[in-house]
């Protein structure tokens, strides 16, 4: 059996920060990560608002954080599958890849979030063949082509404007009659002659042969359905927290986000949470780093009390 003082679930900005703090404090720390190290951070081409660093790619920042955590002694296991776990047992227990068992006295959950998908027919089939979730990655495949951007938040409006560098025409399809994006992003898009809008509408199906050829769009007010020929569709409709595995175990809010107190403590003693999987308003690398720090310090304090309690129990029984 592999016992650690702390197990961190997730290796994004919050998890790696917690790993740096705990391992530097000589807390034996294991980071379990189901995806690639860096989380949403590696999805950002340029981070220009991380204090002290004028400009850095999300990949570089994530790599630096990973190396820093490892330098202090944190063990990182990425691209694994947590097949079962028990947060109420003592010690807390995780089974990885169906066979490896890891236990710890304290747990920090930093499972982050992922891009929301439309979940309509054809979406999986045409991913990479006309459907994209990354404008900076795939924009240049749509030089002089006609594309749709789905969404009404900051990412959708900002990326729609940026995609006009490549596309001949960009149509923004949004389900409401107004945008949630900041006014300057909306104004920039409205002033761009290459951008059109289809409001109060949703894509309900992607259609094509070997690649995407058209979409079926439904007006939300009239229910009218029409088809539109299109070369590409970029989807920016926000994020969902990666908390499915904790449903019914940890207290979540209506958006399936983990509820924490000011010390990042969940409703389970010895279990903390930080980063994009918790209930909060702002989702930034800097906020995740701050929450990871608080979670680590709270976890260290818990471990300290836990150790003292264990010693006291030993003294009573000896």
């Amino acid at each position, binding site marked *: 059996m592999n016992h650690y003082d702390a197990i961190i679930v997730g290796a994004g900005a919050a998890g790696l920060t917690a790993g740096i703090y705990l391992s530097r404090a000589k807390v034996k720390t294991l980071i379990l990560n189901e*995806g*690639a*190290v*860096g989380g949403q951070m*590696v*999805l*950002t*081409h340029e981070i220009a608002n991380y204090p002290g660093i004028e400009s850095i*790619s*999300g*990949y570089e920042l994530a790599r630096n954080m990973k190396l820093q955590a490892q330098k202090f002694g944190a063990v990182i296991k*990425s*691209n694994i599958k947590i097949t079962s776990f028990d947060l109420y047992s003592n010690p807390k227990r995780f089974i990885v890849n169906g066979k490896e068992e890891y236990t710890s006295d304290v747990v920090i959950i930093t499972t982050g979030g992922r891009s929301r998908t439309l979940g309509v027919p054809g979406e999986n089939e045409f*991913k*990479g*063949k*006309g*459907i*994209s*979730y*990354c404008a*900076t*990655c*795939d924009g240049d*495949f*749509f030089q002089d082509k006609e594309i749709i951007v789905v969404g009404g938040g900051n990412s959708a409006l900002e990326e729609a404007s940026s995609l006009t560098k490549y596309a001949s025409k960009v149509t923004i399809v949004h389900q409401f009659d107004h945008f949630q994006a900041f006014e300057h992003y909306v104004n920039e898009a409205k002033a761009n002659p290459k951008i059109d809008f289809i409001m109060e509408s949703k894509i309900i199906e992607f259609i094509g042969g*070997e*690649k995407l050829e058209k979409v079926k769009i439904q007006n939300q007010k009239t229910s009218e359905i029409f088809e539109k020929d299109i070369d*590409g569709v970029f989807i920016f409709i926000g994020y969902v927290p990666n908390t499915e595995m904790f449903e019914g175990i940890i207290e979540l809010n209506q958006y399936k986000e983990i509820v924490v107190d000011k010390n990042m403590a969940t409703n389970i003693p010895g279990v903390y949470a930080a980063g994009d999987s918790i209930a909060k308003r702002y989702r930034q690398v800097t906020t995740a780093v701050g929450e990871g720090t608080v979670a680590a310090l709270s976890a260290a304090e818990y471990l300290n009390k836990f150790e003292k309690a264990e010693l006291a129990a030993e003294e009573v029984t000896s």
Partner: protein
Amino acid sequence: MLRTNLTHILSEQEHAKLLQENENVMVCCGRMGPMCIPVYEVMEELENEYPHVKFADMEFDIPDARVIRDLPECRNFAGLPFVVYYKNGKVVKATSSIQSREQITSILDQYFGQEVKEAASK
């Protein structure tokens, strides 16, 4: 050159040599971008688990990457990375855009064989 720990293919000649010298080859052709990095990371981890497969990367924007970009199997691709799987020099599978570890291992097992993998790891 891509900043990964994989074997880098830098030219058309190196690509041909790699296919000639290895029965099973997986090449990820991309950039250091958000959809590509997770695939490189999975490949780096799989190198030990699949010793009978040669894992390599190639920078999408170098001219010689036409050996991947111009493949008929990649004709309709519009999402990075382009990942191509070769058996005895022939393309057996190609994927576009990000893929999970499960999706990648499922292709490796299907085309390059799980039994071979187990035998090779002994």
